[in-house]
């Protein structure tokens, strides 16, 4: 169906239209940005309504053949339950983050919207494509645009963070490129389904080299422990909506790539027979605990949140690699809960930091008495991160621990709980500082605060809306089990996907 193409084309076209509209009329850009985000959202909504029965059953399969070329030869866009889940998360969260940016950055920054729409197109492309070279092209597009947004403030720290992010990202991309070359020169195809059908015919060593190259590339881009050096800098110097986007959404795209490539394109049995899956769990859990420890010793609020991202991504990668049905459901549930919680933490932080003289935790005294609602939102989202009951974070962590115990990974289960307790300590530290009273009239406590927010009301509303989503999804967490179970089924039976692509 053409709707899949529209999901990529609309943001891509908008990105190129914005500079043109700028020449004619600067005010028209506001309308364009809003209209394009709504158009993308309604395209997705239309797709959902059109295929509602299939989505409810968990059997949605949509295919679009580019230029009418049939699958093994041409490029296909396809949407199955896995792509649908991630595409849903991208569409909704990026739309609201663009609205947040309108309040945060204002309308006067044309380049910002060009880059964020390109990022949107790249993310939809990664999720929807069925061709491994297309995947590489979209990954590099995502890398360049997000690097440009990290350095968007054009100060020294931002530029250095951006350069560092680029070096790590490009090297990660090169590993993926070598993997693609090995696949093409051995199998003569770039189509996911055809690679998947023939992957086991490759020799044992070739399978190993390809798996390790893709793992290296994805782990560099995810910021898993030995390659985590770019994460804190990049996510702390970017403007807050971009930090939310990087930590909440972009990292989840690479989780999607990990699932798609290692479960449905490459043979997951290979990882299991060679014991490589144990190694992945070990690295990911180590990364998780290191992330939490680094967050504990950090005195800068946004860097602390960035380190906490490393901690949670480690858990997600580890639990997905356990590869039971429960583990995959738990991992995907934690993808959703971490996305909502991290976006609400960064969006509320973006507002609260306007009232603090610096990003340092000790400078946050008195934020509670100035902005009670937003600070309460921050506390709720942080409580979700710690894994306290009514929030989705509790349920996803509960199932993660359960699935570790089921396969007797006792140490991993223990370290997940230890990580949550560490999170309790480092969030509590900030919250206690926030509650400290200050006398705003006294000369010692006087601080010059220049709020750069364009529309304060929009910023707080959207931040609180994400916080609301954290609570609501926690209350209705059982409804996610049906769809996520069909995703797990699909991941365990890649032949469904192969038959669908090559047979259609």
């Amino acid at each position, binding site marked *: 169906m053409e709707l899949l193409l529209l999901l990529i084309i609309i943001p891509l076209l908008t990105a190129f239209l914005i500079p043109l509209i700028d020449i004619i009329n600067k005010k028209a850009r506001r309308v364009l940005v809003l209209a394009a985000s709504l158009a993308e959202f309604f395209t997705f909504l239309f797709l959902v309504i059109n295929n509602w029965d299939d989505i409810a059953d968990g059997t949605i399969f949509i295919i679009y053949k580019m230029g009418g070329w049939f699958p093994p030869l041409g490029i296909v866009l396809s949407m199955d339950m896995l792509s649908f889940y991630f595409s849903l998360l991208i569409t909704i969260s990026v739309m609201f983050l663009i609205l947040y940016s309108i309040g945060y950055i204002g309308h006067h920054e044309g380049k910002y919207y060009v880059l964020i729409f390109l990022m949107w197109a790249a993310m939809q492309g990664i999720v929807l494509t069925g061709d491994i*070279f297309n995947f590489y*092209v979209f990954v*590099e597009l995502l*890398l*360049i645009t997000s*690097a*440009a947004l990290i*350095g968007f403030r*054009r*100060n*020294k720290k931002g*530029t*250095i963070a*951006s*350069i*560092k992010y*680029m*070096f790590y990202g*490009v*090297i990660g*991309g*090169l590993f993926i*490129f*070598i993997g693609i*070359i090995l696949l*093409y*020169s051995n199998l*003569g195809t*770039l189509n996911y389904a055809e690679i998947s059908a023939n992957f086991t015919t490759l020799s044992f060593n070739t399978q190993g080299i390809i798996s390790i190259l893709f793992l290296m590339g994805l782990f560099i881009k995810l910021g898993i422990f030995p390659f*985590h*050096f*770019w*994460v*804190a*800098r990049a996510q702390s110097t970017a403007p807050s909506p971009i930090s939310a986007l990087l930590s909440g959404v972009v990292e989840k795209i690479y989780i999607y790539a990990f699932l798609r490539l290692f479960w449905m394109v490459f043979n997951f049995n290979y990882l299991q027979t060679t014991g490589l899956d144990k190694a992945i769990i070990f690295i990911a859990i180590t990364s998780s605990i290191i992330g939490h420890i*680094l967050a504990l010793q950090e005195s800068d609020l946004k860097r602390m949140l960035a380190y906490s991202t490393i901690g949670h991504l480690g858990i997600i990668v580890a639990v997905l690699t356990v590869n039971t049905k429960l583990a995959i459901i738990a991992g995907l549930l934690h993808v959703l809960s971490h996305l909502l919680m991290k976006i609400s933490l960064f969006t509320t932080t973006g507002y609260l930091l306007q009232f603090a003289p610096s990003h340092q935790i000790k400078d946050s005294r008195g934020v509670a008495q100035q902005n009670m609602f937003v600070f309460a939102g921050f506390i709720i989202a942080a409580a979700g991160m710690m894994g306290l009951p009514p929030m989705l974070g509790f349920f996803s962590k509960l199932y993660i621990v359960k699935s570790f115990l089921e396969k007797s990974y006792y140490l991993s289960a223990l370290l997940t709980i230890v990580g949550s307790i560490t999170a309790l300590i480092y969030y509590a530290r900030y919250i206690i500082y926030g509650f400290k009273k200050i006398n705003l009239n006294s000369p010692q406590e006087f601080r010059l605060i220049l709020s750069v927010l364009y529309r304060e009301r929009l910023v707080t509303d959207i931040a609180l809306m994400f916080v609301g989503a954290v609570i609501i999804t926690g209350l209705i967490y059982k409804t996610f089990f049906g769809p996520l179970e069909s995703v797990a089924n699909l991941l365990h039976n890649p032949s469904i996907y192969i038959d669908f692509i090559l047979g259609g």
Partner: protein
Amino acid sequence: MINHIVFIFIFLLGFYAILVKKSLIKMVIGLNIMEGAIFYWFIAITDRGGIIPIVQSTQVAFNLNDPIPQALILTGIVIGASTSAFLLTLIIELNKFTDSTNPDQLGGMIED
């Protein structure tokens, strides 16, 4: 076999530049060397010693070289050029704030 050896040698040469050189510009050059090694290798290992497509319809099409690697590498070159261009732009931007391009003086590449 010689292709693989040459590829690994050139690739590691680029990687060495990134790890050891103390100048951001030289590190970008290192990245370019790594990319160049990959492009060379892809062309070399998919070469079948045949004739070059596009073939006219009157010719008998046998023993053709695969045209897809060339298309992929053209895309790869475009991506490589744009990443290097963007990195160099960032380095020029950095020059406004500091005279140094030594990564160690800018906080280091493996410190966070």
